[in-house]
């Protein structure tokens, strides 16, 4: 039995500045098994996989592959060790043929150093037919469907002699029929002696294809089980964090009048008949998996994406929001999920970032009043306790938590009273998180309404008054925070019917 273990990871730690991404994690993989890696977003699945593929280096811990203790320093070494990885985003070149893609970087040549197309095509075709799939090596990758492209990725990994194949959410873009075909392929790989690490949060699939499952939560290892020994409810219980610690300093606030109401909002394919409202002093949570339409909803309200139909009523009046400028003027502030690419202008100073949406207020005839701008920035640096040497510091040199505070200041400065927070604490250390929660409390106490989108159920449950759950572009359920549990929210988000 012991001989069957081809990969063993023990006491794996991985820390990033301010964050512990993996905290004493274990993982082992046997020959010919499909081992599912399960956890919520941010649980540490990707980090673990990136250590295996050589993208990240572990901070500490032990790794044994094929009985040999080893450190993986780079992706090339991982490849040589027989570890293949198929990402959600494929690494294929659309305008090359299937065969050329499979042998990319290892082109076979004839005596004159010219690429031998025939050798490549026959070699590729052999790998494909061994896999038992109907893909022509001559076809261009761009003409293939998603499922077939995935097969090409699998074939490419096999041509590199992969013994361990990592598949990251392989079914996220496939239809039911294609999933069945993929599973057939996975089974035939197993029979060839390939071990598969399968990352997914679709529970149904795990029971169909998996042999064992390892659950991670908040970077911690929660255990490994044989899939035949565990039930869906048990798995869900393992995935969610039940202890609501003092880390969520939610304070009671008085809920005031309705400030924003959305009626029958539609955006083709993305948002379907969205109805909800939010009141002054309230924190409304929006839960759901990635791609469930949460961020799309925020973008639609903020005037970034066009809507096909629906009404947005702010402070009792109907408004057409055509651009972020409109939204800002109506008092909406949007703290985007990704601070670096959407929230901040990294080369600009702290003070210029804070004043950007409201710079017109500090100006007359287009000329900025530096004194007024400085004063405003100074005020927020003090109130939000932003750690910075001076107001002219470029925000790229601030920490994640301080950057988030700059984004928050920006919307405070624009006098927003409807705040949309999209994953407000992602990549932020624990101490700054608590500060941000406290700021939310202060905002609601001042009569601001907050819409909080988050993948962290504990955060949603700990901070919100009401919670909407989205799935496939629809709001499918609504809960009051005190009357629900993380299990119920997750079941709803996953679309799992009532748990016995």
């Amino acid at each position, binding site marked *: 039995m012991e001989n069957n273990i081809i990969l063993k990871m023990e006491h794996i730690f991985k820390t990033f500045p301010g964050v512990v991404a993996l905290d004493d994690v274990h993982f082992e993989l046997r020959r010919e098994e499909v081992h599912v890696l399960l956890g919520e977003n941010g649980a540490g699945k990707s980090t673990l996989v990136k250590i295996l593929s050589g993208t990240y280096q572990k901070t500490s811990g032990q790794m044994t592959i094929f009985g040999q203790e080893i450190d993986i320093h780079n992706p090339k070494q991982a490849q040589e060790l027989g570890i293949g990885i198929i990402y959600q985003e494929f690494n294929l070149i659309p305008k090359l043929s299937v065969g050329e893609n499979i042998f990319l970087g290892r082109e076979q040549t004839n005596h004159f150093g010219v690429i031998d197309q025939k050798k490549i095509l026959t070699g590729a075709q052999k790998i494909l037919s061994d896999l038992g799939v109907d893909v022509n090596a001559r076809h261009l990758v761009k003409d293939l469907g998603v499922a077939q492209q995935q097969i090409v990725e699998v074939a490419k990994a096999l041509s590199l002699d992969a013994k361990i194949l990592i598949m990251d959410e392989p079914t996220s873009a496939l239809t039911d029929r294609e999933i069945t075909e993929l599973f057939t392929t996975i089974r035939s790989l197993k029979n060839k002696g390939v071990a598969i690490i399968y990352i997914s949060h679709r529970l149904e699939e795990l029971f169909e294809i998996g042999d064992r499952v390892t659950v991670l939560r908040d970077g911690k290892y929660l255990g490994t089980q044989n899939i035949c020994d565990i039930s869906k409810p048990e798995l869900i219980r393992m995935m969610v964090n039940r202890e609501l610690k003092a880390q969520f300093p939610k304070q009671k606030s008085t809920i005031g009048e309705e400030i924003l109401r959305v009626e029958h909002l539609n955006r083709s394919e993305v948002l379907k008949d969205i109805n909800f409202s939010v009141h002054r002093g309230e924190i409304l949570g929006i839960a759901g998996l990635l791609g469930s339409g949460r961020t799309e909803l925020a973008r639609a309200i903020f005037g970034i994406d066009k809507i096909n139909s629906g009404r947005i009523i702010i402070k009792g009046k109907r408004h057409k929001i055509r651009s972020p400028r409109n939204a*800002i003027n109506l008092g909406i502030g949007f703290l985007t999920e990704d601070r670096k*690419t959407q929230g901040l*202008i*990294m080369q600009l100073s702290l003070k210029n970032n804070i004043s*950007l949406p409201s710079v017109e207020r500090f100006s007359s005839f287009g000329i900025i009043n530096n004194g007024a701008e400085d004063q405003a920035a100074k005020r927020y640096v003090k109130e939000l306790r932003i750690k910075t040497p001076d107001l002219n510091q470029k925000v790229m040199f601030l920490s994640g938590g301080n950057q988030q505070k700059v984004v928050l200041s920006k919307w405070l400065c624009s006098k927003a009273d409807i705040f949309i927070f999209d994953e407000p604490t992602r990549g932020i250390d624990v101490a700054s998180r608590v500060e941000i929660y406290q700021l939310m409390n202060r905002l609601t106490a001042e009569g601001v309404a907050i819409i909080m989108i988050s993948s962290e159920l504990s955060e949603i449950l700990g901070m919100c008054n009401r919670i909407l759950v989205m799935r496939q572009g629809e709001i499918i359920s609504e809960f009051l925070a005190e009357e629900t549990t993380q299990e119920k929210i997750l079941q709803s988000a996953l679309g799992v019917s009532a748990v016995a």
Partner: protein
Amino acid sequence: MRKDFLHHYGRQFGTLIGLVFLVIILWILTPHFMTISNLLNVVQQTSINAIIAVGLTFVIITAGIDLSVGSILAFSGVVLASVLNAGMPVPIAMLTGLGVGLLCGIVNGLLISYGRLPPFISTLGLMSVARGAALLYTHGRPISGFTNSFRYLATGEILHIPMPVIIMVIVYLFAHFVLTRTIFGRYTYAIGGNEEAATLSGVNVKFYKTMVYGLCGLLSGLAAIILTARLNSAQPIAGFMYELDAIAATVIGGTSLMGGEGRVTGTLIGALIMGVIRNGLNLLGVSSFVQQTVIGSVIIIAVLIDMTLKRQRI
């Protein structure tokens, strides 16, 4: 205060040292270099490139590029000349020249902002279109012979300072003010730093981008006025390859092609470096073929040094 100064102007300071270094070398190598009349001559010859480079600094700060400035200069120049020759008053003719430049720039801006063309393609196209228009308009012949009141714009002096230099100084003071103290300048940096974040902060990116290209065209029109007055002739082939000199001045001056960073003070020093090298090589009797090669090398070396220093800092 001093720390603040270095913080803001550190990069420009480096370029300035480069310029001083060049000046000292030329001072040693040729006796004629360090004379008042030659130095004024250098600045005067630099002024046209320096003015165009201001427009390019704005464009490059938005992470764009404008290859059409030389052609816009030629087209504005010939239109201006024809208006002058038709007997119109000088101010009207000047406004027409500026207007043509502005309009060409706005066309670039509209194609880039609303037509979503890459700036490289849009301005490459306009480079050819404006050049062709200038040639068509004049049937390929120069338009010459203007009144003294017009030529005064190039030949006149105030306190022994040539008019082109005075115009250049005014343009730089104005541009510096716009970039550092106005909403227009702030948005220019914001757009180049991160277009998406700027949009999400309520900046009307399309409008301001269009205006930036408009400004760049307008300054090409201004350069056309000075060049036409100086040569007493507007040529449809004027301004050939000027875009490269202006881009070089901007980049040597520390404006990042990635956008979001740059100052006109740096651009001015960059333009002066280009002018000093040209003048020095002329004084040394170096052939124009060698000059081309030297100037190209200077651009490459300057940017290499800049990139290396930047990488060390981060």
